[in-house]
């Protein structure tokens, strides 16, 4: 199977998956969540055009997402007010244009430099823009933001986009287009030079490329796609406010991309789906969810720098050469201690959180993993610490074996590969 056919097949599968998801998860929440995942996928991929592809670490990417969101919401209101015959599916184009515009404006300042200084400028610009949005209430609607009613636009072949399902499909189509476009971008001369500039900017200058120009174009295109994401977000929520371009939003997209894996085109997609899911549902399960987010991030940075996609990628040659079976025994042996460590860590965090935060007003009695316990007593603490210690020791004992098994299988697989 040639690479091109495989790619086309993958995108066909992606399209099918997008199309049938609502049949599998028809509830309103699931639809909203999947719509948000679509938005997040576009946003995270646009971010990875900078971080993963061009090596630019930005702490202010939400600026383009948010500003384009405002542009889109104003466009929606303007279209409704002036009764112009534009229907909702065309609104993301406004977002793209706005994203591109602000990308050009801010990019011309910030892409003069790379590395740490670029990161700092992105942070500074982000803070500036947030401050300005709060001051210019006329345009940005203060903290309440600007709202719109998407169902008031001209119907599109009879669709009014009131129901979430219709919005889901609108986002799915745009998401597909953007993913395909961004993927295609990585396969162009420009895309390749982005990688070259990421790997070795100096050398890129000596093969005729202005690294500053490469960074600038990458930045503008990335802002364009972030703009589409911002407009899609505006359509889902029918509301945009200053938080859409805040530092938290920028941090979130960084988290998505990094946890998913910046070294792999599809990494940010995994990250976007996973983080969106966790963000919306984890808070129902635990009040310490932000802490888990932080720990997850640090864990990925320290032990899994390739992210989830990187981890899977490492195993690809092994799976391909049919050697994954040989890893199973040592991996399944690891599963138990890993589960033990996870359980121990989660238990201790939950216990500590309950004792420190809630015990004062609600008493120290609590339910941990469905078991009634008391965070003020020593027993649960001891049990969890013991669990953690035992699991940790077992892990340390078997880890070298698993690592060795991986190394052997990997070497064999790569040796076998053409």
């Amino acid at each position: 199977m040639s690479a091109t056919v495989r790619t086309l097949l993958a995108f066909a599968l992606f399209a099918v998956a997008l199309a049938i998801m609502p049949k599998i998860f028809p509830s309103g929440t699931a639809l909203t969540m999947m719509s948000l995942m679509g938005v997040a996928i576009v946003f995270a991929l646009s971010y990875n055009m900078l971080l993963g592809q061009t090596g630019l670490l930005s702490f202010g990417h939400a600026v383009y997402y948010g500003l384009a969101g405002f542009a889109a919401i104003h466009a929606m209101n303007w279209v409704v007010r002036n009764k112009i015959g534009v229907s909702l599916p065309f609104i993301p184009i406004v977002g793209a244009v706005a994203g591109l515009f602000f990308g050009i404006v801010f990019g011309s300042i910030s892409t003069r430099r790379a590395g740490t200084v670029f990161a700092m400028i992105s942070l500074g610009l982000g803070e500036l823009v947030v401050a300005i949005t709060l001051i210019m209430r006329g345009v940005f609607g203060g903290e309440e933001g600007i709202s719109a009613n998407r169902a008031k636009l001209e119907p599109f072949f009879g669709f009014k986009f009131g129901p979430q399902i219709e919005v889901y499909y609108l986002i799915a189509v745009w998401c597909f287009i953007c993913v395909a476009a961004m993927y295609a971008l990585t396969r162009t001369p420009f895309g390749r030079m982005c990688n070259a500039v990421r790997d070795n900017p100096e050398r890129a200058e000596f093969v005729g490329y202005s690294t500053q120009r490469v960074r600038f174009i990458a930045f503008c295109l990335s802002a364009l796609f972030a703009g589409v994401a911002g407009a899609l977000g505006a359509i889902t929520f029918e509301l945009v406010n200053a938080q859409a371009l805040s530092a938290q939003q920028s941090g979130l997209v960084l988290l998505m991309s990094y946890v998913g894996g910046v070294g792999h085109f599809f990494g940010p997609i995994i990250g976007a789906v996973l983080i969106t899911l966790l963000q919306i549902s984890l808070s129902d399960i635990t009040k310490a969810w932000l802490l888990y987010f932080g720990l997850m991030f640090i864990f990925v940075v320290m032990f899994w720098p390739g992210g989830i996609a990187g981890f899977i990628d490492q195993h690809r040659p092994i799976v391909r050469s049919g050697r994954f079976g040989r890893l199973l025994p040592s991996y399944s042996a690891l599963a138990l201690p890993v589960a033990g460590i996870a359980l121990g860590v989660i238990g201790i965090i939950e216990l500590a959180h309950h004792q420190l935060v809630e015990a004062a007003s609600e008493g120290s009695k609590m339910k941990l993993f469905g078991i009634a316990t008391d965070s003020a007593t020593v027993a649960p603490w001891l049990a969890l610490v013991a669990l953690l210690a035992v699991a940790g020791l077992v892990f340390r004992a078997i880890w070298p074996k698993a690592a060795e098994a991986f190394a052997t299988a990997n070497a064999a697989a790569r040796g076998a590969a053409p």
Partner: protein
Amino acid sequence: MLELITFSTLNGVLYGMLLFMMASGLTLIFSMMGVLNFAHASFYMIGAYFGFEISRRIGFWPGFIVAPLLVGAIGALVERYGLRRVHKYGHVAELLFTFGLAFIIEELVQMFWGKLPVDYRVPPSLDFVAFRLFDTTYPAYRMFMLATAVAMFVFLFLVLKRTRVGLIIQAALTHPSMVAMLGHDVPRVFMAVFGVGAALAGLAGVIAGPALVTQPSMAALLGPILFVVIVVGGLGSLAGAFVASLLIGLVQTFAVAINASLADVIGPSADIFGDLGRVTVAQIAPVIPYLLLVLVLVFRPTGLLGNRES
């Protein structure tokens, strides 16, 4: 008017010196290790909370001594078991590590001490009026803060100029790759620099906690300003960090006192700027540092006194 100027100058210098206590450590760490430590302001916060915890149990003065040392130890541990591990993945990973760390520290502080500001008080021995100008008073505690910051500054200056360690650090500032060749145990030097930087930030936290506010968002509020300071001053330049600290301290303090807006200056034609035309300088005081950052990077990319490109 005179009192406004006097007190604004005092407050501006004080704020600037506080910034410098943190920016100096941050600059040292960045220059030697290439790590822009996002968690630096978090050490400041930990310092304030440790100071609070110790002062309510034993007293302010023990906290004044012990808390910075504890924070320094934590910093050294972070370097040894966290940063060093990530080092092999490059500077971006290191930066992201400290970014995540800052996040976790904030969450942990919220868990241990709650989300509301804690009642970290000025010690009774310093709780009096230092002087009175017209009828505005200036608290002695603020003078103490100023004195501590100046003492620290002098100490740092002497260490850098007069000791062997200082010479190595200075060499490392200008020629980061050279340190290894001087035959020093580089990892240990890094750990020490990181620890000392954290301890300095911790000390700043201990003394700033009672005067300002000790709360979980104090790190997130200050962190970005610190980056502004070291970038505006020039990455790798201690003198630049000092100048930029004072500059930002004074600018931010004085900006608050200015009520003029664009409309006042250019008249009704400012209406074309919409809401921006009516915004006063005082209103935007806290974002002036970021404006400064962008301007400096556009017109003088190496910063005021810097000579390193990145």
